[in-house]
């Protein structure tokens, strides 16, 4: 049981896919100008990741090794299209804001990476938990970055005014460079205070 829990909790902070393994940062940045879009994007990715991990894990003994990658891509693409269709039908406004970035979940390295590295060798339940953990790890970073950008860029959180009239939004936060710098600083924090035991040489 403890082992199972570790599968979920490990990728949250210690082994976070975005800040530690550098996976899936592309989409992590473009949709983080608002907390709302970031939450929807996180949900979509977590669900796709869980489903794809389970599907690949179920198929793992049948997939011929030669066409392994393309089958994975096919499964992932199908799931992403499903997610996109559901968003378009039930959350039209948000899906318009996410525009092409839902589609880009296909090439999100977390999904491909977990399928290759974990789901191909492990049974469905474990793969599901692994997907959940990594999805949540991604979500934490995404929502944190979005919260910082929205709060200091617009003075709002989830669209509600937080700061009063005196606040002048910092446009740089909303522009792309803001996102890069915030992630950089988050990584610094994580490596200095939380994951001290992990070191990387450049």
């Amino acid at each position, binding site marked *: 049981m403890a082992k199972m829990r570790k599968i979920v909790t490990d990728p949250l902070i210690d082994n976070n896919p975005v800040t530690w393994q550098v996976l899936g940062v592309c989409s992590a940045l473009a949709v983080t*100008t608002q907390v709302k879009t970031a939450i929807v994007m996180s949900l979509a990715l977590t669900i796709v990741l869980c489903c794809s991990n389970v599907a690949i894990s179920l198929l793992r003994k049948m997939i*011929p090794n*030669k066409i392994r990658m393309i089958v994975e891509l096919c499964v992932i693409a*199908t799931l992403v299209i499903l997610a996109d269709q559901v968003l378009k039908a039930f959350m039209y406004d948000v899906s318009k804001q996410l525009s092409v970035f839902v589609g880009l979940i296909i090439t999100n390295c977390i999904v491909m990476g977990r399928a290759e590295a974990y789901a191909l060798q492990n049974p469905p339940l474990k793969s599901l938990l692994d997907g959940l953990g990594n999805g949540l790890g991604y979500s934490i970073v995404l929502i944190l970055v979005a919260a910082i950008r929205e709060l200091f860029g617009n003075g709002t959180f989830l669209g509600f005014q937080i700061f009063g009239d005196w606040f002048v939004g910092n446009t740089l936060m*909303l522009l792309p460079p803001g996102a890069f710098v915030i992630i950089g600083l988050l990584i610094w924090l994580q490596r200095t205070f939380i994951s001290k035991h992990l070191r990387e040489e450049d």
Partner: protein
Amino acid sequence: MSEQFKIIRFATIVCLICSILLAVVSSALSPRQEANKANDIKTKVLQVFGVTNELGKAVTGSAEIESIFSERITGLVLDAEGKVVAGKSVADLTPEEINAKDKATGLKQFYPLYIYTDPATSKKLYAMHVSGKGLWSTIKGYMALEDDLNTIFGMVFYENAETPGLGAEVEKPFFQDQFKGKKWLDSDGKVAEFKIIKPGGELNDHAVDGITAATMTGNGVEVFLNDDFTVYNKYFTQEGLRK
């Protein structure tokens, strides 16, 4: 059974399952998606006409939107010459067809005109769709005119991908609210060129303040507002609607 055959069989099965799943889901959800799209346009139109519910909030429920639309709003479709297009209603128009101007897709650009009749005063309002290039994205919006077809009643920009914090501010109330009460015609009844000027410049009836540090976006908006009004104005004059 040979290795190759196995691989091909497996690939075929995976493809089949995926495609059947997708086709089923897509056809099951597509009516809802279409309805969303149509609703989206209608919400924007209600917004520019300033229609709100009892609480003063924007109307969002699809049933409510539908009933207001069928009771108070009629629409017509114009072509680039300001002529009414027969056999096409505003409900048929896709977002692509009303934003085709700057694209090389070969689609014909149509101009929807919504006419709102106030249930209490039976005064009419007219909403035109305006769109065009800003700095690097297409900016889209609706502009409502009062029944003299001259005074601007409201302006709503509903889509843009300009620089956040700069050009993207066109969607903010401080910019849109300036349009209210401005006029298209000068004192002789001729169409005056509408201007978006640098903040701090001299304002008149046909000009609004631009956004600081977003001059290029302002220039774009200025150009397409004038272009689009010219088309609608052809219709207004041809039909002799303006008293």
